[in-house]
C-alpha cells in the first residue's frame, strides 16, 4: 500500500486520481476499519499536511471550517463557541479527549455514521459543504449532500464547511449510554432566529434516527413564526416525537427513541437558551 502526504489540495486531488487511493483525515474510523480489514485501500492520501484544510476563520458571510479541523480545535475555538454554539457543544462531548484531538469534521462527514456528532449541528446551522474533485470545486447545502447516494463520488475531497452567519442562536444535546466515550443514541440540534419573543427560521436536525443525520422540514415549518415560550417547547416535543416515529418505523430502537427524544429536544433548547443568555 502506498502512503502519500500531499502539501496542497490540488496535489491531493491529483494523487487521488492517479493512485485510486482514499483520503485519510483523522483516521479514528478508517484505521479501525483497516485493522478489521473491512477496507483495504490501494493507497492512502493523508490530508494532515495541508495547512489550508485546518483553518477555522470568519469571513463576511460565513464561519469557515476546514475539513481537517479537529473536534478539539473546534471545541476550543472562541469563534465557534460564539457563533455556532450547537457545533461547539457537540465538540465537547464527542468521543474522548484523545479522539477529539484526532478526529476531524471532514472525516465525520466522510465516514457519515448515523450517529456522527458533528452533522446535526452543521445541518441546523444551514451549512454549505465545499467539495473539490478533478472536475473542480463546488459548494452545496449539506442537507442536499446528505441526501445523495453515494455521498461522494470517488476522488472527491471535502474541503470544508461554510456556516452562514444567520442563526445566532443554536443548541445541541446528545443522548448516550454513558457520560464519555458514548456513541450518540439520539442527538438533536436546534437553530433559530429570535425577534423579540418570536422565533423565526427554526431548523431542527436529528442524529442517530435512521441511516444519516437529517434536517426536518416539518419541524421547521411547524415551529417557525411563533412565540418562544413553554407551549412552543411542548409543541416541539410532540412534533419531534412524531418525526422520530415516522423515521424509525418498527425498528427495535423505535419505542424507546420516540419517547426519549422529548428529553433530548428539551435539553437542546435549554442549551440554546443558555448560549443565548436567555436564562440568567
Amino acid at each position, binding site marked *: 500500500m502506498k502512503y502519500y502526504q500531499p502539501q496542497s489540495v490540488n496535489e491531493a486531488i491529483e494523487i487521488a486520481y492517479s493512485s485510486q487511493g482514499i483520503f485519510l483525515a483523522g483516521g479514528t474510523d478508517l484505521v479501525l476499519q483497516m485493522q478489521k480489514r473491512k477496507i483495504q485501500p490501494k493507497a492512502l492520501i493523508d490530508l494532515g499536511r495541508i495547512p489550508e484544510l485546518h483553518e477555522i476563520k470568519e469571513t463576511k458571510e460565513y464561519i469557515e471550517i476546514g475539513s481537517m479541523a479537529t473536534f478539539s480545535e473546534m471545541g476550543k475555538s472562541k469563534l465557534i463557541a460564539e457563533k455556532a454554539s450547537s457545533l461547539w457543544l457537540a465538540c465537547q462531548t464527542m468521543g474522548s479527549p484523545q479522539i477529539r484531538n484526532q478526529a476531524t469534521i471532514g472525516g465525520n462527514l466522510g465516514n457519515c455514521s448515523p450517529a456522527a456528532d458533528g452533522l446535526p449541528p452543521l445541518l441546523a446551522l444551514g451549512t454549505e459543504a465545499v467539495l473539490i474533485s478533478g472536475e473542480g470545486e463546488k459548494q452545496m447545502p449539506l442537507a442536499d449532500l446528505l441526501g445523495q447516494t453515494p455521498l461522494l463520488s470517488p476522488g472527491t475531497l471535502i474541503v470544508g464547511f461554510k456556516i452562514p452567519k444567520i442563526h445566532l442562536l443554536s443548541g445541541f444535546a446528545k443522548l448516550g449510554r454513558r457520560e464519555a466515550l458514548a*456513541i450518540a443514541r439520539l442527538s438533536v440540534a436546534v437553530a433559530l432566529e429570535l425577534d423579540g419573543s418570536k422565533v423565526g427560521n427554526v431548523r431542527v436536525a436529528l442524529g442517530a434516527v435512521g441511516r444519516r443525520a437529517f434536517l426536518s422540514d416539518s419541524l421547521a415549518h411547524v415551529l417557525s413564526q411563533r412565540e418562544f415560550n413553554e407551549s412552543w417547547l411542548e409543541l416541539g416535543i410532540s412534533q419531534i416525537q412524531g418525526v422520530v416515529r415516522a423515521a424509525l418505523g418498527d425498528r427495535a430502537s423505535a419505542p424507546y427513541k420516540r419517547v426519549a427524544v422529548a*428529553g433530548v429536544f428539551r435539553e437542546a433548547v435549554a442549551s440554546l437558551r443558555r448560549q443565548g443568555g436567555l436564562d440568567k
Partner: protein
Amino acid sequence: MKKRGIGLGCAWYGTGYGNGFPDVSSAFVEIHDDGSATVLTGAVDVGQGSNSIFAQIAAEELGLRAEDICVNTADTDVTPDSGTSAATRQTYNTGNAVLKAVRQAKSRLLIYAAREFSCPTPEGIELKSGYIGVKGDPSRRMILGDMVFKARLNGERLISAESSTARSTPVDLTTGQGAPYWPYSFGCQAAEVEVDTETGKVKVLKVIAVHDVGKALNPTQVEGQIAGGVTQGIGYALLEELELQKGMIKNPAFSSYLIPTALDVPKIEAYFVEEAEESGPYGAKGLGEPAMLPTVAAVINAIDDAVGVRITSLPATPEKILQALAEKKEELG
C-alpha cells in the same frame, strides 16, 4: 424531568473457598544478615496490593519498615502454594500464613537474643524501629542486623515455612445446614441518583460506602478497593451486559460492552468499621468482593425512591426505566 432519590443496600460475604475445601496458604520467610527479610508466597498480586500487605505484616513483626521486606510471589519454582487470589482470601489467609511464618523465623532470633541479653525468656525481647532489645530497658538494645549477623555466625538460621488454613465445613447436601464460610464480611452503601423521566437515564451522584474490614491493614488500599468495587457495581447496575444471540457475543468490544468512565463515577465516600476478627491477621478480614456487593442494590433502590418504579432485571437501562414509568402511568390511569 429530573428526579432524585436515595437507596440503601446491605450485603454480607463469606470469604474463602468455603464448604470444607482445604483453604490453605503457605509462606516462606528468611531474615537476612542485615535484618531485612524476604517473604515468599504463591499468592498473586493481581493489582489489589497483596504484596504490600504481606510486606507490612512482616515489617510489623520485625520492627522494620515495609520497604525493608522483599516480597516475591507466584513463581512456582520458588514460592509455595498459597491458593488462588480470589474469594477475598489473600489478606486473611496468606496474611495469616505470612504472619505465622515471620513469627516462627523470629522466634529463634528471640531465643538467641534473650541469651545475649541475659534475659530469662524470649517474651522479654522486642523488635522495634530496626532494633532488638529488652522490653522496657532502652539501654539494652542492638541494631537488629547486628544481632542477626551474630546469630548466624553462631549457626542460627532464621528461616521458616508455615501454612494457615481457614475454618470451614461442608453443608449437608439435603438440608444445606453447616458452617460453610469463615469469616463473613459485612457492609452497606447508600446511593443518591438522578433519574431523567423523559430519557430514562440514571446518573449516580454520590455513594457512601461503609464496610467492615476487621482491621484496615492499609487504609489507602481499603479505600481503593471500595471505590473500585462501587464503580464496578455501578457498571453492573446500569451499563454492563453481554448481548448474546444464539450463544454468540454481539458486543465483544469496549465500544459496545460499556464500563464506567471517569465521568460516570459519582463522588464516593468510603468509611470502614474496625471490629477485630479474632482469627484474622491483626484482626483483619478481606474486602475485595464485598466492596462491590451493596452498590447494585443501593442504586436500584434509589431509582425506586426517585421515580417509584421497581427495576427487577439488570442492567437498569433507560429503556427499562421508561417502560416501567409508562406501565406505572397506565396503572394509575
